[in-house]
């Protein structure tokens, strides 16, 4: 290849990859074939005599197709390779249309390990790097052996953090709460060539499977230890889904349809309910399966999220990568005071309506929601964070201490929510509150502001109002404050531009761990899992230099 070869050498993905990726096509072919056979079953007896001679040809045809498919898959596997060096991850793939992609590690936004159901059976995993290049810019390396994927993730995060550590001072340790090896994630590990997970094959030398581990220059980056912060029990998830708006809409529609059917005695009505039921059921199952077993933890590498029933996903969002946070509560969650926490992370695009990557907490009581918020923003920049957040979540203009809300003349435009719509500013973040039935709070750290906007329509102008918005990266969180007093909005726009600028200049992501350790003091280090897949590879002499 004419491409610049990273000194590390190219490595291949696991040979089972094409099968795991192509199983859907395989299943479709089998299904269609099976369907044909079943449909033709009545005719089989009649035409058995004539078909007898054709069986062999059909079989040969099938074998040929299988061979071609297998050959293509083998070729595709052979062409797929990845490499890691100090600055970037390289991936190349494609048989006819070759693609080679470099993802800069200093632009790393998140690392996910995804395991679809079939891959779980094989013990495989796919590693995805998000690098904030817009939709489809991520680099998916897969499939790898699960342990390899974890080692690769640790390696990537260590390298990404190493770039950072050169610029920033290592954080002072919070005594007692941080287990040993905390710094390992932030130390430039494997600065020289050659470090990497073992069990990989230098391209074009040895066939996979029988290869000796690639030589390693240094000890592979250890998997950073983590502290569990919260998890969502399945019972709560189910109850929360039953209390979600989707279910209530479904119930209302079903009752209406059944009533109609009973009154008119025409059962055709029931059939018309089917698409709705299927749709709602699919949505609920998708949410249940995606958010099942949700666990969040912190580690020096960042926030770790694990979830999924059939397809599991382990996300790592390094410190300072969350662009905006939202806390929302539907009307039926108010009783147990449950909240849902979502985040915007560059590279996680929820364009297809699925936001499972953007969930920080699917459902949890206020304390857990706050813990989730502290994960992202350990220091809210105020002396009374709890009181401020309480006001932001449940308060309105009648009790406000911090929030500036829409003026009274906005009540024609916002008859129910004008007392709730408002903003508050701390030293570190901007808080935007809205909604009465569907309560919502959006928090944007000042240094994550992209650009600012001010809009005013004719009705707003007549009443001296304006809407203020912060532009964040693509995601489910949309920070907007509607119908503020025009003067307030203009001042906010001006001040926020200055605040964002100063905050950017002073942004120090290195201070992250210290604050989270304070925020989550109840976890003792002994409970921590110690994932140390310490291969003997570290003792091998290095030859890569």
């Amino acid at each position, binding site marked *: 290849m004419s491409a610049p070869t990273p000194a590390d050498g190219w490595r291949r993905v696991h040979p089972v990859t094409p099968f795991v990726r192509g199983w859907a096509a395989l299943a479709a072919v089998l299904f269609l074939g099976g369907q044909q056979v079943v449909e033709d079953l009545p005719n089989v007896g009649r035409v058995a005599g004539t078909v007898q001679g054709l069986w062999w040809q059909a079989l040969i045809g099938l074998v040929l197709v299988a061979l071609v498919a297998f050959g293509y898959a083998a070729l595709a596997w052979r062409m797929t390779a990845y490499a890691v060096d100090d600055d970037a991850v390289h991936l190349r793939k494609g048989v006819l249309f070759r693609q080679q992609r470099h993802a800069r590690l200093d*632009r790393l*936004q998140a690392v996910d390990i995804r395991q679809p159901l079939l891959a779980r059976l094989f013990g495989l995993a796919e590693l995805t790097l998000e690098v*904030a290049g*817009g939709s489809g810019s991520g680099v998916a390396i897969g499939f790898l052996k699960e342990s390899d994927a974890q080692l690769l993730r640790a390696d990537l995060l260590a390298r990404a953090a190493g770039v950072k550590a050169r610029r920033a001072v290592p954080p002072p340790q919070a005594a007692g709460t941080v287990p040993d090896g905390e710094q390992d994630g932030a130390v430039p590990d494997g600065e020289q060539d050659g470090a990497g997970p073992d069990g990989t094959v230098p391209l074009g030398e040895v066939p996979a499977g029988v290869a000796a581990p690639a030589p390693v220059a240094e000890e592979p980056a250890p998997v950073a230890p983590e502290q569990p912060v919260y998890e969502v029990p399945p019972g709560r998830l189910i109850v929360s889904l039953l209390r979600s708006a989707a279910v209530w809409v479904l119930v209302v529609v079903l009752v209406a349809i059944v009533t109609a059917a009973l009154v008119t005695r025409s059962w055709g009505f029931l059939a018309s309910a089917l698409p709705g039921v299927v749709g709602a059921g699919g949505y609920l199952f998708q949410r249940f399966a995606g958010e099942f077993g949700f666990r969040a933890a912190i580690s020096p590498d960042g926030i770790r999220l694990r979830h999924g029933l059939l397809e599991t996903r382990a996300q790592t969002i390094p410190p300072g*990568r969350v*662009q905006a946070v939202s806390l929302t509560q539907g009307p039926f969650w108010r009783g147990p005071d449950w909240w849902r926490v979502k985040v915007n992370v*560059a590279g996680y695009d929820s364009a297809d309506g699925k936001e499972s990557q953007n969930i920080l907490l699917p459902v949890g009581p206020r304390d857990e929601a706050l813990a989730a918020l502290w994960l992202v923003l350990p220091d809210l920049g105020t002396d009374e964070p709890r009181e401020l957040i309480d006001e932001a979540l449940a308060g309105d203009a009648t009790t406000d201490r911090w929030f500036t809300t829409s003026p009274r003349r906005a009540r024609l435009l916002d008859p129910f929510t004008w007392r709730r719509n408002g903003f508050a500013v701390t030293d570190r973040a901007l808080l935007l509150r809205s909604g009465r039935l569907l309560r919502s709070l959006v928090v944007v750290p000042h*240094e*994550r*502001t*992209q*650009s*600012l*906007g*001010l*809009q*005013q*329509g*004719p009705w707003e*102008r007549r009443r*001296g109002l*304006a809407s203020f*918005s912060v*532009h*964040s*990266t*693509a995601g489910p969180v*949309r920070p907007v404050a509607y119908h503020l007093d*025009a*003067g307030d*909005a*203009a001042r906010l*726009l*001006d001040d926020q*531009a200055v605040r*964002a*600028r100063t905050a*950017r*200049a002073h*942004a120090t992501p290195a201070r992250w761990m210290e604050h989270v350790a304070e925020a989550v003091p109840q976890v003792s280090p002994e409970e921590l899992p110690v994932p140390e897949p310490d291969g003997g590879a570290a003792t091998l002499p290095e030859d890569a230099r």
Partner: protein
Amino acid sequence: MTSEPISTTGPFDPPGVTWQGVSPRLITARLVSGGITLAVPVVAGVVLAVLVSPWFWLLAAVPAAILVWVALVVPRQVRAIGYAERDDDLLIRKGILFRSLVVVPYGRMQYVDVEAGPLDRRLGIAKVQLHTASASTDANIPGLVPDEAERLRDRLTVRGEARLAGL
């Protein structure tokens, strides 16, 4: 309905900002493209009305009315577009009925596009489009003289590099 430079007051006119307008040739560009789009249904309606039934005059009348409206509004809209380079950010102001103001910090710009279609090139104008990491940043300045567009692009790029800060 005076059509002098529209001076907004209040939130869309931050103190100490001198706004720069865009080239009036943008009016021509917008009128031509709007006229072409709307002329097709007008002509079709007229032809059908003559050949088939007088009811098709309605089909012609609606786009014709829109055309008149566009001809009235576009000049004011174009005059309402303004931009200002401050020390650390760029302001873009638009709209009369629905006003908007966007503040784009130089350090947040990921890249800058300069676009000009065939009509724009003939008229000698270009559009500068700014891109941040946010897709919702709708920051473009249409109707710039090519020299000014290039100057702005280079200036923004230089300032952006000087202030660029991660995401």
